[in-house]
Every structure is written in structure tokens, then in C-alpha cells.
């Protein structure tokens, strides 16, 4: 038996699992979205999806894109300070701090934010207590803002970890040369460091983008009423109406959103894996 056959045999079970549990359901999703009750081709499920849920589609896109912007800002700021900062104790504190939410599941993040951002939550108590807002101005943030905060809180540490790792492996000579020429730190970060780790930032953001698109628990717990995210609509179509057709159409539309990001990511990842193999 040659090496190629052996390799294929070893990898076959894993490929089979992916085929049965990803490729087949994906095919079923496409099939279900375009098929009417009699088994013929139809676009009616898409018409109905757009008729009922256009607002939610836009809501979903805006929330997820805003979250990506927020995640990028936090990750660049923290990873940048960890790379260029000069105050060792601040760096140590930062490094210890930022990672806590890293492996906390979304469903727990949802519960945590439900208590923290509520009208009677700790955020409002602290804002009122420190005199930053009037007691009457305290309001519940459990709407689109809550989803946004939950997403950034949960995903920013992951992207920061990747970005800080990439920045740490950069050649320090360029950075020091620019510093010696008197460039301020933020310009070194944005002009010299960031362009070199663009790929890593991109991968982190795309993975976050795709992940957030399919999170059900956070919007369900923080903001279940319309306008809300498409995942909630999918769950609602299924659990209340048993309507898999529209649910699948909605799923395909969110797949379309993801495919843009996914295409960027897959190209980058396959390139890197090929380089790795060489």
C-alpha cells in the first residue's frame, strides 16, 4: 500500500463525518429553500422572507458589521499597546486582563449582559453613583446596544490574542527605526505595525463575523423582539410554525452574507496552509 492510499484511508472517516454533517445538511438547506410543497422549483420562500424580514436582515448586517468595527478597534488598541507600550507594569496588567472572556460561551455572555446592562444593572448603578448620569436617565441597554456590547465583549479578546501574537513576531528593527526618527507611537502602530499584520486581523474578523451571524442565544436573550437578528427569526419559524422552507431561505440569505467573508478567509487560509506544507 503506498503512502497516498494510506493517507486517504486515514483521512476518510473525518471527511465522511464532514460530508454527512456539513455538506448534506447544506444541500438540504438549499433544496428546502427552493422547493415548494409539490416538489417543484419556487422562489416563494424568498419572497416571503423579504416581505417579513427585510428589516431584520439589515439589522443583522448592521449589528455584525458594527461589532466587527468595535472588535477591530479594541484589538488594535490593546495589541498595539502590548507591542509598542513602554510601561511594563501596565502591559502586564493589560495582558492579564483582556483575555478573561476568551472561552466564555455566548449563552453565558447573554445571561451576564442581561444582568449587567439592565435598568437595575451594575452599569447603571456605577454610572449614577459616579455622577456621570442622573438617576432618572438610567435606561436599559437590552436592545441592539446590548447585542453589540455582548458581541464585542466576547469576541474582542480572541482577535486581540491573534493580533498580539502576530505583532510580537514582527521584526523590531523597523519599529525601532521609526521610533528613533521621532514618529509618535500611534503613527508607528497605524503606519508600520498594522499593515504587516493585516492578514491576521482579517482572519480574526472574518471568523468573528461568521460566528456572530449564527449566534442564536445572545439576541434571543437580550433582544428577542423585532427588529432582531435573523437567527431569532429562523428559530421562530421552526418552533412556532414548523416552517422549514422560510427558515431555510433565511439561512441561505445569511449564508450569502457569510460567503463574502468566507471567501476572503478561505483564500487566505489555504494559501497559508500551502506555504506551511512546503
Amino acid at each position, binding site marked *: 500500500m503506498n503512502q497516498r492510499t494510506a493517507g486517504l484511508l486515514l483521512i476518510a472517516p473525518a*471527511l465522511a463525518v464532514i460530508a*454527512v454533517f456539513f455538506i448534506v*445538511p447544506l444541500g*438540504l438547506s438549499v433544496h428546502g429553500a427552493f422547493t415548494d410543497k409539490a416538489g417543484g422549483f419556487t422562489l416563494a420562500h424568498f419572497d416571503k422572507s423579504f416581505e417579513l424580514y427585510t428589516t431584520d436582515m439589515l439589522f443583522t448586517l448592521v449589528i455584525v458589521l458594527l461589532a466587527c468595527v468595535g472588535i477591530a478597534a479594541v484589538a488594535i488598541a490593546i495589541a498595539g499597546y502590548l507591542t509598542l507600550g513602554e510601561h511594563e507594569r501596565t502591559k502586564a496588567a493589560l495582558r492579564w*486582563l483582556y483575555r478573561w472572556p476568551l472561552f*466564555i460561551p455566548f449563552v453565558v455572555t447573554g445571561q451576564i449582559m442581561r444582568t449587567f446592562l439592565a435598568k437595575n444593572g451594575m452599569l447603571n448603578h456605577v454610572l449614577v453613583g459616579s455622577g456621570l448620569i442622573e438617576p432618572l436617565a438610567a435606561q436599559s441597554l437590552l436592545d441592539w446596544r446590548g447585542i453589540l456590547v455582548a458581541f464585542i465583549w466576547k469576541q474582542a479578546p480572541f482577535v486581540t490574542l491573534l493580533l498580539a501574537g502576530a505583532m510580537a513576531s514582527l521584526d523590531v528593527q523597523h519599529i525601532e527605526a521609526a521610533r528613533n526618527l521621532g514618529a509618535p507611537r500611534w503613527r508607528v502602530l497605524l503606519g508600520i505595525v498594522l499593515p504587516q499584520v493585516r492578514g491576521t486581523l482579517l482572519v480574526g474578523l472574518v471568523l468573528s463575523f461568521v460566528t456572530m451571524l449564527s449566534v442564536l*442565544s445572545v439576541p434571543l436573550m437580550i433582544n428577542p423582539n423585532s427588529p432582531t437578528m435573523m437567527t431569532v427569526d429562523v428559530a421562530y419559524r*421552526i418552533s412556532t410554525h414548523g416552517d422549514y422552507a422560510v427558515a431555510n431561505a433565511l439561512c441561505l440569505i445569511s449564508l450569502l452574507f457569510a460567503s463574502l467573508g468566507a471567501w476572503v478567509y478561505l483564500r487566505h*487560509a489555504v494559501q497559508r496552509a500551502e506555504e506551511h506544507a512546503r
Partner: protein
Amino acid sequence: MIGGLGSRAARLIARALTIGLLAFLIFGPLANLMLWAFAERWYFPGKIPQEFGLAFWGRVFEPRGGAVQSLVTSVWIALLTVAFCLAVAVPAGYALARLKLPWRAAILFVFLLPQAIPNLPIYVNIARMFYELRLNGTVHGVVLVHAAHGLVLAVWIASAAFAAVDSQLEEAARNMGASPLRCFATVTLPLAAPGLIASAIFVFLESLDEFTGTYFVGVPDVTTLPLLMFNASMGGNYQIASITALLLLLPSIAFMLVVERFLKADVLAMVGR
């Protein structure tokens, strides 16, 4: 000079304030959860609970509370998932790292695909498939869903772990007459073990924390800890929800604190959930 001192002091204060703010944003939500977990009574507009106590802990852990049952179910599902994933991922990871494969790029693509598409359509349609196979609401059905999700992760980490083993050591063993299998069992496997353990922990945690797949496939008979938490929270029972959330937090945070002993950032880059 005085201006220099002043600006240094200002910078110090700015740094302290920033760190303080960040600490509040990270630990504030966690602290709020702790307060709810130990609150006996907490009515508006109390800033902190009017009464602390452990009565709700008793309720969570008594048989009717369901937490013990859910915990056992969750851990059992996670263990089965790990066993299934490793059995499939270890050979695949080895082949990816060590053997010449035809259609290598296509295979890599297939293993990246599940990460790059939203999971919801997958879960929705697996639930339909399982409904016909009578796997809905069974532990086995949930294990299969978790395993399919964890497998991608496991294959990538296992492959990275095998790739990191020095192939000269394997060649030396072969030159001294060890069979391929013996060489794998006595040289390659022990050297790759830390990475494989890391992948097992990852899969275990993923399974323990998984919500969406269980929500669609597990209902109504399989209640894992995340589902119990979700139901309590949606039912307005914040104490029960917070206590369950705390149980789920502990392994996640423990893993966060030790993860770098097992994995470097470049392997983590492959992981991204």
C-alpha cells in the same frame, strides 16, 4: 522640568484610569453575575441584593432543580464527543501532517469550510435529518452534532501537533528496526501528546458550552447545562440562571488561564470558533 514631571504624572493617571475602566468592563459583568448567584432577595431599586444567601444553590442542586441531572448529561455528552472526535481526528491529523496526500488543497478546503459558514442552517437541517432517523432528543444525536462541530477543531490541532514532532526522531526509530506502527506508538504519539490533550480539552469545552445545536436537536428530552441556564433565564429566574452560568464559567476560565501552556498563538490562529 516641572512641565515634564506634570505630563508624566498625567500620563500615569491616564494609564491607571484606562486600566481601571477596562477592568470594570471585563469584571463588572462577571461581578454582577456573582451578585445574582448569591442573592436571596434583590428588588428594584436596590443597588446590591437586600439579602444574600445560598438558598437558591440548594434549589438548583436538589433533584427537582435539574442541575445535577443536566451536569451529568452535559459531561457524559462531552466525554463521548471527545472520544468520537479523537478517534477520527488523530488519524486524519497525522495524515495531513506527515503523509503525501492527493488533492491536498481540496482536502484542506473541506476542513476549513465548516468554520467559514454559519452553523445555523447546518443545525436546522441536521435536526430534520435526525427527526426522520429518530435521533432527535437522544444523547447520541446530540453527541453527533457536537462531534461534527468539534472535529474541525480537533483535526487542525492534531495536525499541528504532529507537524511539530521532529521527523528525524521517527527516522532514527525506523532505522533501528522499529515497525511503522511501533514507531508511531512509542515515538510520534507521546511527542504529540500535549497537543492532542489540548485538542481534547478544546472539544470537551466546545461540547460543554454548545447551545444552538442542542437547542434544535436535543429538545425536548436532552437538557444540557446551557439549555437549563437558558430556560431559567428566559423564565425570569435570575438566581438559578446565574448559578448555572457560574458552573459553566469555571471550566472556561480555568482553561483560559492555562491555555498557553498547551498552545501557542499560531496554533490558536487555526482554531477560531
